[in-house]
């Protein structure tokens, strides 16, 4: 067992917001969230809008206060301001002082880390180059596009070389090239041994980047694990591709279950039922073209999870972490 504390340790974090004017009611945005992220991991925090992802990040940043539960980052409680020297944060849809230029903004944020003026200059130039803004050093932020603001946001989050970086929807507002560049930055950070915790609803990015992901829905944690594990833990299945024999049509029962694909049919069946279904198909005198395992994506898993009623437990619920 590692002697280092986890990079992020969340225990029973809960947040209620008052809603309505009179009478005021409490609405639970985050419900008893517990998870751990180890140092050096890229951790994806997934969930549809309103799942509680931003609430969690705001709680970790000390922007809002928990109704219940505790959390620590690098072994220090989240209300320890000195700990903030070791973390970086990109808020969702970031907005910065638009009267500043990119260089001035970064210099301003670097001042909080007590660097010398010469060190700040070097860092600012280097990090703006890293996020692809070297051509806009002296442009005021009010003239920046949404994508450029996002890059400036990432730059301010990493300028002081933090050990843990929190990114709230870092790919939002970026074109495919921008998304790829951000993915490269995140992978670079991992190579440097840093921990990246990012929320997203772009599942392909999470699947491509993350060592582990957590799925949040309606404020509740629905599953934690490696993307490949988390999807394979859900229903296993097989895909059968077949076509009716010459001049024959499918029985109504079979036609109802199969999906037409051109002149062929596809049937997804649970792995356990494979042989009985094949027997059934043989009896129907169809030509079986292929039998292949279904490869569910994170998106498939995610969609099934979201469509499931909240009280139904997830098949991939694995809240114990490494």
């Amino acid at each position, binding site marked *: 067992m590692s002697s280092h504390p986890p990079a992020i340790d969340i225990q029973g974090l809960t947040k209620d917001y008052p809603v309505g004017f009179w009478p005021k009611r409490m609405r639970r945005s985050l419900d008893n969230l517990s998870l751990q992220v180890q140092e050096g991991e890229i951790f994806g925090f997934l969930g549809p809008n309103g799942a509680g992802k931003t609430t969690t990040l705001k709680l970790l940043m000390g922007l809002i206060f928990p109704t219940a539960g505790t959390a620590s980052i690098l072994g220090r409680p989240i209300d320890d301001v000195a700990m903030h020297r070791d973390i970086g944060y990109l808020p969702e849809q970031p907005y910065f002082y638009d009267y*500043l230029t990119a260089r001035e903004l970064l210099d301003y944020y670097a001042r909080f880390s007590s660097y010398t003026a010469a060190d700040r200059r070097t860092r600012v130039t280097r990090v703006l180059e890293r996020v692809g803004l070297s051509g806009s050093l002296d442009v005021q932020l009010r003239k920046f596009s949404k994508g450029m603001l996002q890059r400036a946001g990432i730059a301010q*989050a990493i300028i002081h070389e933090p050990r843990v970086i929190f990114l709230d929807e870092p790919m939002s507002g970026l074109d495919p090239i921008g998304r790829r560049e951000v993915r490269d930055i995140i992978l670079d950070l991992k190579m440097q041994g840093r921990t990246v915790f990012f929320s997203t609803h772009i599942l392909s990015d999470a699947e491509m980047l993350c060592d582990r992901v957590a799925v949040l829905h309606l404020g509740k944690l629905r599953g934690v694990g490696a993307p490949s594990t988390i999807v394979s833990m859900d229903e296993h299945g097989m895909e059968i591709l077949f076509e009716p024999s010459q001049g024959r049509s499918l029985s109504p029962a079979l036609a109802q279950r199969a999906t037409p694909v051109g002149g062929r049919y596809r049937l997804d069946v649970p792995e356990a039922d494979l042989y009985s279904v094949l027997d059934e198909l043989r009896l129907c005198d169809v030509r079986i073209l292929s039998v292949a395992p279904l490869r569910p994506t994170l998106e498939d898993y995610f969609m099934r999870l979201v469509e499931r009623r909240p009280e139904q437990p997830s098949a991939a619920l694995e809240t114990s972490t490494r």
Partner: protein
Amino acid sequence: MSAMPGVVAINTFREAVRDRVLYNLVFFALLMIGAAILVGQISIGIERLVIVNLGLSAISIFGLVMAIFIGVGLVYKEIEKRTLYSLLAKPIRRWEFLVGKYAGLVLTLLINTCFMTIGLAVALLYVDRSFARPDASILIAVYFILLALALVTAIALFFSCFSSPMLSTLFTLGIYVTGVFASDIRNFGALTKNPLLKTATTVIYYLVPNFHNFNSIAAAAHSQSIPFALVWQNTLYALMYVVLLLLASSAVFSQRNLK
């Protein structure tokens, strides 16, 4: 001593400059030039009185407008535009942010007031052709105006921590006006036979800062000397209220959820 408030203060000042807040100095300069020329033509013997009255009143009003309208947005704007989110993720405490914002606006007001005072001095020089020793009281009057502005800024900042700019403006303006007439309100209470009203006016008198204490415009205009003891009293009085208001702002803001 933490350097964080200083970093925030310089940025707040830069914001005011870039938002062209100091453009009001141009209007002030034009007002002073116009007044000096006009007064020179229509008043005989009281040019200095008119210029000093007009100049100090303008410094006070221009400063008050800036202190209230920028002050009420100091915190609110940072929350609304979410610029505060990335800032508070840096190693800065919430009270350090507040003190920085406050110091930044006071610095803006100080520089604004300095330039206006220079404008007033030039107008006086145009009318009188020279400065006299009693003119020193003008500088003391300007200092008192600055103390009042620092106090108004602290009040605006306090309301900005939990209220919208419109309500904060109303509250700050309300307290300022009450403070200007604090002595009259107390005298009114003393005249009434209603014990409840008497108690209420006494409480208001002691609770609300007495802004009348900071008004030395008439004395400066009439070349009357201002006692040095009053300078100390007013300084300590303003300082005490500012510290209390910053502590209260900090207590409120430290508990606030930034939605």
